[in-house]
């Protein structure tokens, strides 16, 4: 009998960024982290992705902004945020005190050029570990489409931002496309370091008594366990087509759902809606992954990535 348990390697690389473990929290679901400090040691997190920041402050959409749906929820927050400068002055210093990498999610309102301005500014800030391009935000339209709904627009944007920063760049992709792999390929060929998938699915829910949508903007983004099978399939599809790391997310709610994403091809995972249900769930997932690797005698999380076995 072995007295000492094997200590599996949990660290992963996303571009130039090295994470001590592969569990991060998804943009928009963890506030600016301070809301969660009473519940867990935030330092344990592999990384924290901030709520999406825009150049100018954004007040967001009218309420109601959320509702519960079967095994999921809808949200239409509308990227409410204090804008880049307030973020840098007030939020970032506090985030940096945590001592875990801070990935800043950014988006642009109407002009994709703002992505470049934002990236250039963030490039100079030491406390920014990486930049996630939220090109799957339903508020940004490009010929009435999201950037991440068009391979060419994705390519051009990533190319432009790549010139503005040397920091690790992640593109967050939308599942609201016919073929997500062509978007991922476009981002990869333009020099992105990693892709995050998936953002929320376009969806809606109706109150039959009032015959109104439960959400003020009528349609909204679906998240939570309901989207997990879709997210997983997309991670698997993309994994077979690109070389760069995938950050998998969509309905991760416990250890086993997180592990599914690694097996499908994710290098790291992000926890979203589950933070609302159990604010210390990321801690439990990190511990659980370690246990699973020990039990399965796998010495590194990297070996689990894309380890899906052929059926038969």
């Amino acid at each position, binding site marked *: 009998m072995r007295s000492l348990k094997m200590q599996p390697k949990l660290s992963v690389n996303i571009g130039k960024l090295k994470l001590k473990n592969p569990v991060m929290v998804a943009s928009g*679901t963890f506030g600016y982290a301070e*809301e*969660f400090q009473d519940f867990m040691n935030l330092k344990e997190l592999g990384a924290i992705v901030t709520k999406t920041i825009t150049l100018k402050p954004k007040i967001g959409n009218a*309420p*109601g*902004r*959320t509702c*519960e749906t079967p095994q999921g*929820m809808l949200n239409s927050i509308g990227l409410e945020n204090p804008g880049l400068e307030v973020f840098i002055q007030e939020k970032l210093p506090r985030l940096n005190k945590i001592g875990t990498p801070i990935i800043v999610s950014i988006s642009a309102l109407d002009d994709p050029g703002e992505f470049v301005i934002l990236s250039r500014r963030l490039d100079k800030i030491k406390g920014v570990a990486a930049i996630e391009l939220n090109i799957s935000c339903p508020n940004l339209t490009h010929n009435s489409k999201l950037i991440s709904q068009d391979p060419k627009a994705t390519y051009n944007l990533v190319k432009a931002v790549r010139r503005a920063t040397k920091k690790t760049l992640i593109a967050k992709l939308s599942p609201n496309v016919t073929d997500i792999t062509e978007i991922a390929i476009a981002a990869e060929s333009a020099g992105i370091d990693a892709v995050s998938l998936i953002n929320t699915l376009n969806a809606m829910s109706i109150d039959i008594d009032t015959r109104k949508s439960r959400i003020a903007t009528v349609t909204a983004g679906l998240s939570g366990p309901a989207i997990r099978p879709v997210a997983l399939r997309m991670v698997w599809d993309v994994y077979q087509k690109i070389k760069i790391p995938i950050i998998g997310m969509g309905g991760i709610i416990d250890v086993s759902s997180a592990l599914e994403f690694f097996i499908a091809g994710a290098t790291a995972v992000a926890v979203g809606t589950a933070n*609302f249900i159990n604010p210390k769930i990321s801690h439990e997932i990190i511990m659980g992954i370690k246990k699973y690797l020990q039990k399965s005698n796998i010495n590194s999380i990297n070996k689990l990535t894309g380890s899906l076995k052929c059926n038969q």
Partner: protein
Amino acid sequence: MLQIRSKLLYNQRVQGGFFRLVARAAGMIREAAPGKFVDIRIDDGYGPLLRRPFSIHRVREQNIEVIYEVLGKGTEVLSRKKPGEYLDIIGPLGNGYSILDVRYSILIAGGMGVAPLIFLTEKLAERKTQNAKRKIIVLIGAKTKNEILCAKEFTRLGCDVKISTDDGSRGFKGKVTDLLKKILPFVICHKRLAIYACGPRPMLKEVSRVSTTYKIPAQISLEEHLACGIGACLGCVVNTKEGFKRVCKEGPVFNAEEIIWPDC
């Protein structure tokens, strides 16, 4: 703010679809205050998925009490929990009522809105014993007499209780806000008044209108659908004169005059 595994001590029907729940919550007692709430994870199996918020009805020793109405899946599942079972509870959350030093406190409850006002009354009653001139007037409104809750408890706490029902089955026939307008002329001369209200939106909107007209400071407890309950998702905002504010963090209690009400 704490996340605890709390032992359920009591969970029984009060009347109709209303239940009273008592749970052990030792760590939460110190921070508990009238108007604050707890966010209860109803079911470990994610049915429903999100937590459900409930006002702190009162605290007794190491226990927190909640009263709730069975409305949908979450409260239905909750009503079937048995003493001895454990609940994952986060709290106390939000901003409660600030207690104002006035002669007349007018509490207005619509339906389930009585829940936090009992806790508030207990706090107001502590002050009342120091100064017997202080009065607490409680106006309770509901659709029918079957939905009137806690009237006796308010009386026991020394309040002057007045009731209204939409169908006239008990007390004044009409809206509780009509009752408010009826009694205001009798107390308004005292100047030092404060209103504390909790109930459905249309009621709170009318309370705000009346209190603004009469220049009476009014605090109202608002509801929104909460996703996180801790200020992280920005899903629960209401429109105020200072922009959007979160019901779960800056609220649920707001000064009536700061709210910008939608037209419908």
